[in-house]
């Protein structure tokens, strides 16, 4: 309890200015260090440096948004949006630089699309903040942007020439629309979450939802558990910057010893709050809930530990494989899913703690439930036509390239499923008058499908969309 209490008191002790100065100094220090490194190499304005600057600013902005969420001091939000602006400028520079270098708009690989996604997200955050007054939105979007930029560092970055199929204006139209639509869906997800807070959904329910998400992620990671406590990850060839294949479509897995046991331990830690919640829901013994909240806090420490160990061991090093003789290298870039899962769960658990400790302040700062419900609907009313046009542009492009406007390839099918889910949302809302909770659940589910279409299909299902 003492530990929890200490963390809880910290923001109260630090005044508004202290944190702003601290974050400002941190940003300045990191920029200065990066500058020193760059001066040595001589190439100042390449896109990875600009992206690094954007990352630093976004981190600063994320911290300040979070601080605003905790304390509600308006000075934080001013500096947070200032940092977002600075990050956005650096991000724009990176996009422009990349565009200039490649000679085509940066939509050709998942790296370039993430670059655009993060950019769109930052723009939409600023719009939501300035135009609609949803100030807290940066608490959710900035961490997503940060994860995006970190993932980009892991992916292959060199400008690769466009293969003939990608040399089309329609590709740019298609991808621009996709990024806009997906960013709008992300925004509607964040708004729906805020609606649930304003709609007086019980904090315990959020505990159950976040714990379930965390447990599901760790169970997913543990499908890679190997005999004797190892964790198998995909092998990575550092020269080609590509995954190692043993046959067409069959990846080579290497086993990092002992990491599996650590993941099992963390799974137990993140399952504890869920378990306590389940007992609480039967017995209604309040002390169980207090224990569950404490367990969440403890589990975050263990999750950070898991992330640190995973990052250290998977970053480089050679490991044995069950499929082939000898030792093979791996890299963080080979396991984007595990990595984003580990980061994502920490982030989700932190958001829960934010809600647990500062719910009253959050409710005071957020727009009313009615308004959030309306803005969510408006965002989807923007996202849906964009999704439609995105699919149409993609179909037109496919027709010019492969001679068929629709070939039921997984990405196409999942785009259609996404479209159907949002069409369902609109029908239920317009003809059945669905408002509030049910509409919010729909918006949340819709975004889960979007995420699967964007990442899941690329990495898990085979198909024509191999480049993205």
């Amino acid at each position, binding site marked *: 309890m003492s530990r929890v209490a200490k963390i809880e008191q910290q923001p109260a002790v630090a005044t508004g200015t202290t944190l702003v100065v601290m974050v400002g100094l941190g940003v300045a220090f990191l920029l200065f260090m990066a500058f020193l490194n760059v001066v040595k190499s001589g190439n100042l304005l390449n896109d990875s440096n600009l992206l690094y600057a954007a990352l630093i600013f976004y981190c600063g902005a994320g911290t300040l948004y979070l601080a605003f969420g905790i304390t509600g001091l308006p000075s934080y939000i001013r500096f947070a949006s200032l940092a977002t602006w600075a990050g956005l400028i650096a991000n724009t520079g990176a996009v422009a630089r990349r565009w200039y270098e490649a000679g085509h708009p940066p939509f050709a690989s998942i790296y370039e699309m993430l670059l655009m996604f993060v950019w769109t997200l930052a723009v939409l955050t600023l719009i939501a903040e300035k135009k609609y007054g949803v100030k807290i939105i940066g608490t959710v979007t900035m961490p997503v942007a940060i994860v995006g930029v970190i993932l980009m560092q892991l992916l292959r970055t060199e400008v690769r020439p466009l293969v003939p199929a990608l040399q089309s204006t329609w590709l740019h139209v298609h991808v621009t629309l996709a990024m806009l639509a997906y960013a709008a869906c992300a925004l509607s997800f964040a708004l729906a979450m805020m609606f649930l807070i304003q709609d007086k959904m019980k904090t315990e329910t959020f505990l159950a939802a976040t714990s379930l998400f965390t447990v599901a992620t760790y169970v997913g990671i543990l499908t890679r558990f190997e005999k004797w406590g190892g964790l198998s990850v995909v092998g990575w060839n550092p020269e080609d910057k590509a995954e190692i294949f043993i046959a067409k479509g069959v990846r080579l897995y290497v086993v990092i010893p002992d990491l599996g046991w650590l993941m099992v331990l963390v799974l137990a830690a993140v399952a504890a709050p869920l378990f306590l919640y389940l007992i609480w829901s039967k017995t209604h013994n309040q002390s169980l809930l207090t224990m569950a909240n404490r367990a969440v806090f403890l589990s975050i420490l263990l999750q950070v530990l898991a992330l640190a160990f995973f990052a250290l061991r998977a970053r480089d090093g050679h490991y044995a494989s069950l499929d082939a003789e000898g030792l093979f290298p791996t890299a963080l870039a080979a396991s984007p899913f595990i990595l984003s899962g580990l980061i994502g769960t920490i982030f989700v658990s932190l958001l829960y703690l934010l809600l647990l400790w500062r719910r009253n302040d959050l409710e005071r700062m957020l727009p009313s439930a009615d308004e959030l419900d309306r803005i969510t609907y408006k965002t989807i009313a923007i996202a849906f036509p964009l999704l439609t046009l995105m699919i*149409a542009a993609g179909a037109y492009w496919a027709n010019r*390239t492969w001679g068929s406007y629709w070939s039921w390839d997984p990405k196409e099918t999942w785009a259609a499923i996404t479209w159907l889910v949002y069409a369902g949302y609109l029908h239920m809302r317009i003809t059945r008058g669905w408002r509030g909770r049910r509409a919010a659940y729909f918006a949340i589910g819709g975004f889960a499908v979007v995420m699967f279409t964007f990442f899941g299909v690329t990495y898990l299902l085979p198909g024509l969309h191999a480049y993205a």
Partner: protein
Amino acid sequence: MGAHVQSVPRKLWQTLGAIKTGVILLILVVLLSAAGTVILQRPATEADEMQRAYSPQVLHLLDALKLSDVFHAWWFVLLLSLVSLSIISASIQRFPNAWRFFSRPYKSPDEAFRKGLPGHALIPIKDEETALSVAERVLQKEGFGPERIVRQNNFSLFGERNRFSEMAVYIVHASLLLIFLGGIVDALWGWRGFIMLTRGQESSQVTPQNASPRTLPFAVRCDGAGQENYADGSPKRWWSDLSVVKDGQVILRKQIVVNDPLVYHGVRFYQASYGNTGKLDSLALTATPREGQNPQEFKIGPNETHTLDADTTVRLAEFIPDFVVQDGHVYARSTELQNPAAHLVVESKKVAQSVDVWVGSGLQEDAASPYIFRGKDVQMAYFTGLEVSHEPGQWAVWAGVVLMGLGLALVFYFVHKRVWAVPVRDAHGQLKLWIGGTANKNKDAFEHQFRNVVEQIESELKVSSPAVAHAPVAALAGK
């Protein structure tokens, strides 16, 4: 209930149009197409790969249920047809009401409507005529185009904007049906296939994926094909020069590249692949006479004969792109151009017998030949792979897409707003102007506009008749 007997087809029709049916059908479409992306699919995945991925029993089950080719299974087509029918039924069942609403707008609100409308205001007025003309002016300025409604010797006002957006949802539904129609037409009458051509070759035979070849009423000829590379060696561009030939005449010529097909009579030819056939197109050689210093250069194709001088001819009998010598024989190792060898047959009137000459690195010249041959350049024959498709339904699809874009824009971004102004007497017999307004979406923005309209009318009335006491705008909790 009991008295009202419905025929079975009618009941079926109504069930089909119910929103519940629609939702269940859509959920089924979502689940089954998701299954189609997770389970390996037949035409795209090769048979042996399927066998490797699934055990024989599972594979048998998947094949029996058509789950290994979801998107062409009869039940999937049936499901999509049911979805179409459901949309048609729902649209037809709801259309009369919507049309009535659209074609006969509700212009003079009765008392019950006036009481029930959430967004309304009451402004005290002195006389009807001044109030109505002020309201008319304000509504005109706000773009509602007000008209005077006469009923039982009193006047009222009705103004509206964007009435057409009430019907826009039918445009969206119609566009979806148009897209489905295009898909069905293509599924029934469309086809896809493949043609492989080398330079100068001509063909009218298209090989479909799993059917017998199809003969086109015209032929395509490849006049040339090639590949351009980036500096790093990855391909930048593939191109083919194609001619459409009918009855021996060239009708159309076009250079196609990836993303830019040739279209003739609804048949489209796409650049799909490009590669080495392993065969020779032409070989450039120099021939130097054994006595004399005048080397001559010439080009020769497979089985072509070239005249070297009055007495001597040379024929290219064989070409091997990648040769290897084993036990005194020449063998082809691969079809790649790596270590070429050419087998020439030299015939001379001076010599009775023809002489075999092999040209290639490390091969011995035949001393009997009157000429010494050197290879200069090799042009391999490349094939261009053309994807051929005929999709007569695609125009319905594109028309549907355009219509849907239009419909969605109307549905989401055009708001049907209605405003009424009616002079009424309240319970105390005082004359008041009742103003009411409603919008079919984006209601918070409309509420703002409506309040603005009411305030404008109020302030203008005050200017024109300062005696009227100020009354607050009432009941504006419109949702």
